[in-house]
């Protein structure tokens, strides 16, 4: 049991609000973090970014992390992708300790980060070039993915010719083209307007269902987190630690109407309380 989750145990009214620190079911853990912490060294001394974390994410799970700014969410993402070594502890992906970029992830950032000199199709093919995979083998897959996200007919366009939402869809294709097991998303819809954002949420759920990927998504928006997630991890302020992990027992497929479900609103309320007691979520 994680000590951080204990205090809230006493006041648990309903089943869906129960905290789950770890799901020891039959599902295989796709990602496992044991005692992972990160401390950055700077001139003014060591700056702790993440306190030791222990949790697992199951295969095919939609796992969402919410937390205040600067709580080390992005650090977490970099450690899972192998870009950053943890200061202590180990990250395991598929049972193997991550020591360097393993390529079994697709990453989506807040900005689409498409290369402006490549057209949409060729942007989506970037991981194939980087991993030195056979281009012709994956070309059809890239085109199918672009179709899946509704970008059919835009393959030859340059990124600046597309809207923000369309660019972000293209970057989702890029994250999926090499068929990774895990999709890491760092506030993927933070730069989009509210309406586009809701539509992208629904689409992301559809894409995840159709591809069966394990998704780790980081967000500032609590309703977005609850709407998308199988489980929501709530983080504390810097240095980040696990405040709680919540199950979201709402059936799939979910639609925007799910947001008016009492289970949904209660869960949102409950997660929001974490931030009201410890500070603000900006």
């Amino acid at each position, binding site marked *: 049991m994680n000590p951080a989750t204990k205090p809230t145990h006493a006041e648990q009214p309903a089943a869906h609000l129960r905290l789950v620190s770890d799901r020891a079911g039959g599902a295989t853990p796709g990602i496992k973090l044991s005692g992972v912490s990160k401390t950055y060294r700077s001139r003014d001394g060591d700056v702790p970014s993440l306190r030791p974390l222990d949790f697992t994410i199951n295969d095919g799970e939609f796992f969402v992390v919410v937390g205040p700014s600067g709580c080390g969410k992005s650090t977490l993402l970099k450690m899972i992708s192998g870009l950053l070594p943890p200061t202590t502890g180990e990250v395991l992906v598929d049972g193997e300790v991550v020591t360097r970029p393993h*390529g079994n992830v697709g990453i989506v950032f807040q*900005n689409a980060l498409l290369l402006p000199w490549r057209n949409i199709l060729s942007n989506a093919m970037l991981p194939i070039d*980087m991993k030195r995979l056979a281009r012709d083998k994956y070309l059809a897959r890239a085109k199918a993915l672009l179709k899946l996200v509704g970008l059919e007919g835009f393959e030859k366009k340059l990124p600046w010719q597309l809207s923000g939402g369309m660019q972000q869809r293209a970057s989702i294709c890029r994250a999926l083209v090499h068929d990774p097991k895990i999709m890491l998303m760092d506030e993927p819809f933070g730069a989009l307007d509210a309406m586009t954002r809701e539509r992208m949420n629904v689409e992301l759920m559809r894409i995840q269902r159709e591809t069966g990927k394990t998704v780790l998504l980081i967000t500032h928006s609590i309703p977005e987190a609850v709407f998308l997630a199988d489980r929501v991890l709530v983080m504390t302020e810097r240095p980040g630690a696990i405040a709680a992990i919540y199950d979201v027992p709402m059936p799939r497929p979910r639609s925007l109407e799910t947001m008016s479900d009492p289970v949904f609103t209660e869960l949102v309320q409950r997660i929001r309380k974490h931030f009201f007691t410890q500070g603000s979520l900006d």
Partner: protein
Amino acid sequence: MAEAKSPSGLSKVLNAAWVRPFLFLVVIVVAWDLSIRLFHIPAYQIPSPGDVVSVLISDWPELLRQSWPTTYATICGFLLSALFGIPVAMLIAGSKTVESYVYPLLVFSQSVPKIAIAPLFVVWFGFGIIPKVISAFLLGFFPVVVSAVQGFKSVDPDMVDLARAMQGSRFKVFCAVNLPHAMPAIFSGLKVSVTLAVVGAVVGEFVGSNSGIGYVMQRSIGTFDLPTMFAALVILALLGVILFWIVDRIERLVIPWHVSQRDDISFAS
């Protein structure tokens, strides 16, 4: 339709983008001529445009012959500054250690007036083309380095992380992300560099040469032959403009995707 929109062919031509600088030039030349007539400026101080043009026409073969060494030295110096400037910028942008050692020295070397040390190159390398090339190179080198460093450094670190997370090797990530990203900045540096390389070549010719436009200028100022001196200036300006234009064309070919090259508007909102 087209007839209705443009009342006359003449106004269309006058409004074309490439005509405007020429129109402005005509205005300047007319003002130059008028002020000489109005203020009775003697010809040994400022020659009239007519005299300059007549020298340009009568001495054209000689001027053209003398402009080749200058052009040659300029291009060599410019290519050298690109050839050395871009890799040096890569090293400076890629390594904090290299930056801390090299960059301050580079800035320091820029504060040394090239004209003052140009005679040194004549002492070292004689009266041939080498002093001119070196002086063109020294003037053109710095802007390339400064712009390219800025270009290499302005790459979004997330973009590099993204490519690295896909197991891209350092070299592959550099070629796919960093280098193309730095291209617009490199080209803006190259454009400044090419015009400065002209200056550098002329400086080289001033101090020790018996050929080139710089030599023509030096000689004509010695004999108070101001129309020839001004004609040489016109040739130099033309040389700068043509070389700049060539770099600009190459830029359009190499980075057609860049914002500065877009002339059609976005259609997908």
